[in-house]
C-alpha cells in the first residue's frame, strides 16, 4: 500500500494536480510517525510512510492547508473521512482546495500495548490476516492483532470511505460495531458509581489540551478556555471539580458533531477514556432522534440543530440517574 500511495502522490505532484501532499512522515522508530506537508518528490521519497502506526487523523490540518492557494493531496483512512465531511459541512475546509485519496486501514496499533508485551527494538509491524508481524532487532513475533490494536480500532464503526476523489483499494462498508458496549456498562452503574468513575479518570487530567487540540470538532478560532476576555479562561483549575467540567463542557460542545474518530483518547497522555463521554452523547442522540452518524454526508440532517415538531423532550425520556 505504501508503495502505491507514494507513486500516486509523486504523480499528482509532478502533473500539477496538487501543490503539496499531506501525509505521515517516518521518525526515529517504527512507531513515531508525524503528520507532515510534503512539497517535493524528494521529501516524499525520504520520509513518506504508511504503516499500522499512522493513526493520526489528518483532516484537521486541512483547515489551515486549504486556506492556501492551490490543491493539496490528503490521504484519508475511512474514519478520517467522517471528520473530513463534518469539517466540510461546517465550512472549515475549502473542499475545492483538496484532493482526497482514500486509503485502506486494517486498524492501527497501540505502541504502548506492544511495549506492555515486552517487545523492544521494534523495526516494523505489518498485517498478516488477523495477525500482526512484529519485526524486532531480536527476531520476529507473530501476535494476535486484537491484543495490539488501539481501542477505537477494536470496535471500528466503519471501513467505508465517505468522502474521496480517488480510492486506492475498496470503498469499504459500514461495520456492525460494539462501540457502545462500554457506554452501556457505565449507564448500568448507579449515579454515585458513575460519578466516582469519572472523578477518578478525570483526576489524572494534566490539562495539556491535547484532546481539544487534536479534535477535528474543536475548530474554534479561539477556545473560550484560552480567551482571557471570556471570564472562564483556565490554564489549570484552582480546584479539581472545575477541571472535570472542562471535559464535560467540551463533550457538550462537540455533541452532534463528533464523529467518534477517537483521537481524543489516542492522544491523552494520561489514558483518560474521553471518547466514552462523546459516545454517550452519540448513543443518546441515536436513541432519541434516530440513528445519526456525524460526517456520513457533506450535507447532513443534524439532529441537534434541526427542529421538528415531534422532537422528543429528553428530560421526559430520561430520568436523571438511578438515585
Amino acid at each position: 500500500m505504501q508503495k502505491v500511495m507514494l507513486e500516486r502522490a509523486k504523480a499528482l505532484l509532478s502533473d500539477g494536480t496538487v501543490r503539496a501532499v499531506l501525509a505521515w512522515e517516518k521518525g526515529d522508530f517504527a512507531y513515531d510517525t508525524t503528520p507532515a506537508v510534503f512539497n517535493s518528490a524528494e521529501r516524499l521519497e525520504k520520509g513518506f510512510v504508511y504503516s499500522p502506526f499512522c493513526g493520526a487523523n489528518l483532516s484537521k490540518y486541512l483547515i489551515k492547508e486549504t486556506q492556501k492557494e492551490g490543491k493539496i493531496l490528503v490521504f484519508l483512512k475511512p474514519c478520517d473521512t467522517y471528520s473530513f465531511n463534518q469539517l466540510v459541512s461546517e465550512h472549515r475546509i475549502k473542499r475545492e482546495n483538496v484532493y482526497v485519496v482514500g486509503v485502506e486501514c486494517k486498524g492501527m496499533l497501540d505502541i504502548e500495548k506492544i511495549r506492555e508485551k515486552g517487545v523492544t527494538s521494534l523495526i516494523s509491524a505489518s498485517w498478516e490476516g488477523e495477525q500482526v508481524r512484529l519485526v524486532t532487532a531480536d527476531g520476529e513475533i507473530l501476535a494476535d492483532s486484537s491484543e495490539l490494536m488501539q481501542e477505537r480500532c477494536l470496535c471500528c464503526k466503519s471501513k467505508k470511505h465517505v468522502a474521496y476523489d480517488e480510492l486506492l483499494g475498496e470503498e469499504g462498508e459500514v461495520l456492525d460495531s460494539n462501540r457502545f458496549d462500554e457506554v452501556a456498562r457505565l449507564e448500568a452503574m448507579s449515579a454515585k458509581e458513575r460519578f466516582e468513575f469519572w472523578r477518578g479518570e478525570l483526576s489524572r487530567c494534566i490539562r495539556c489540551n491535547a484532546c481539544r487540540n487534536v479534535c477535528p470538532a474543536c475548530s474554534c478560532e479561539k477556545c473560550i478556555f484560552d480567551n482571557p476576555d471570556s471570564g472562564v479562561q483556565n490554564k489549570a483549575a484552582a480546584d479539581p471539580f472545575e477541571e472535570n467540567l472542562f471535559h464535560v463542557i467540551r463533550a457538550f460542545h462537540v455533541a452532534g458533531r463528533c464523529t467518534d474518530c477517537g483521537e481524543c483518547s489516542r492522544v491523552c497522555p494520561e489514558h483518560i477514556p474521553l471518547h466514552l463521554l462523546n459516545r454517550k452523547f452519540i448513543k443518546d442522540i441515536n436513541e432519541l432522534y434516530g440513528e445519526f452518524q456525524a460526517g456520513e454526508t457533506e450535507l447532513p440532517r443534524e439532529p441537534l440543530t434541526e427542529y421538528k415538531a415531534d422532537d422528543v423532550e429528553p428530560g421526559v425520556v430520561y430520568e436523571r440517574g438511578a438515585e
Partner: protein
Amino acid sequence: MTYKLNGIQLNEFFARVASDKKLYLPVDTENGARFEEWTEGKTLSSKLNTVRSAKDFFFPQVQGIVDFKLEGKNIEVIDRREEVKDFVVFGVRACDAAAFAVLDRVFLSEHVDSFYAEKRNAATVITLACSNPEETCFCSSFGIDASAPGGDVEARLVEDALYLSPLTEKGEAFVESIKDLLVSADDAVVEADKALIKAKIAKLPLASLKPADLRDKQLETFESEAWAELSQSCLGCGSCTFVCPTCQCYDIRDFDTGHEVKRFRCWDSCMYSDFTLMAAENPRHTQPERFRQRFMHKLVYFPMNNDGVYGCVGCGRCLKKCPVSLNIVKVMKRIGGVKNEQ
C-alpha cells in the same frame, strides 16, 4: 561507602523508612507507573519510569498561594502556604534527578522561590540506577549517567539486592537512621553494575545523539528555516511541557469563586496562545514562534545562562507522549544539534 540490606526484603525496608517520614515511590497502576505514598502492600514499580516526572514533588501543577475572602468592607487574607514535613522519595531516575539540578538553577538562584525551596529542603532523594534503559532514553546525550544517578542516596538493585550509597549530608543522615538494616557492601558489585548499565546505554538507538553547543549561534538558530517546517504538525497542546521534568514556566492566576478569590500558581506552557500574554499583546503570535521558543529555551537560552547546562535531560517522556510524535530529538537533528560520534 556502599551498603546493602542485611538480607531483609525491599518492603521491610520501605516499611521502616515510612515509619519515620512519608515515603514516596513509583508504583504500578492501570495507567502506568506513578509516584505514590508508600503504604502497606504497595510494591516498587517494575517500569523504568513514571508517567509524570518527579518535579511534581517540588513544583506541583497547582500551588495555592493566598485566598482573599470578602466580607462587607473587609478583606481577609488567608495564607495558603502549608507546612512541609520532611519526606523521602525513592526510585528517582538519573534523568529526573538531573532535572532537579536544572530546576534548582531557576528556583534557588538569586531570588529564591520559597515554595520550591521548602519542599526541596524537606526531601531526601534516593535515586535508582537504570538497570534496563529504554530505546527512548537519551540522557547520555546530556552527559547524564544513568548508572550513577546521583541524588542524596544512590540506590541500585543488583540481582534483587538493594545497594545504597550516600552522596550528601542528607544521604549520610538517612543511612545512619537505618544503619541497623544495612551491612557494608563490596564496591566491586557496584562497579560491575555500572559497567553493565553503561554498556546497555551505549547500545541504545539514540546513544550517538549529541546536542551542539549553540551558545554562539543564537541568532542564526533563531532564524533557521527549520522552525516553520518542524512546527507544521505541532498541535499547540501542552503534553510535552507537562510531562517534561525540566519545564519550569508558570503563571499566577486569580480564581473568583463568587465569594472569595483564590490566587494560585500553575504550570504554564509556551505552546499556549496566552503564554506571556501582557497588557499590550503577546510577543509570540504564531505557533511556529511558540514552538521555537520551547526548543530555543532548552537548547540555546538555558545553556547560555547556565554554564552550558542544557534544559533537557533526555528522559524520553515527550517522545512517548507527543500526540504527533514531534519531539526534541527530531528538533535536535534538524537544527544542527547532532554530532554523530560513530
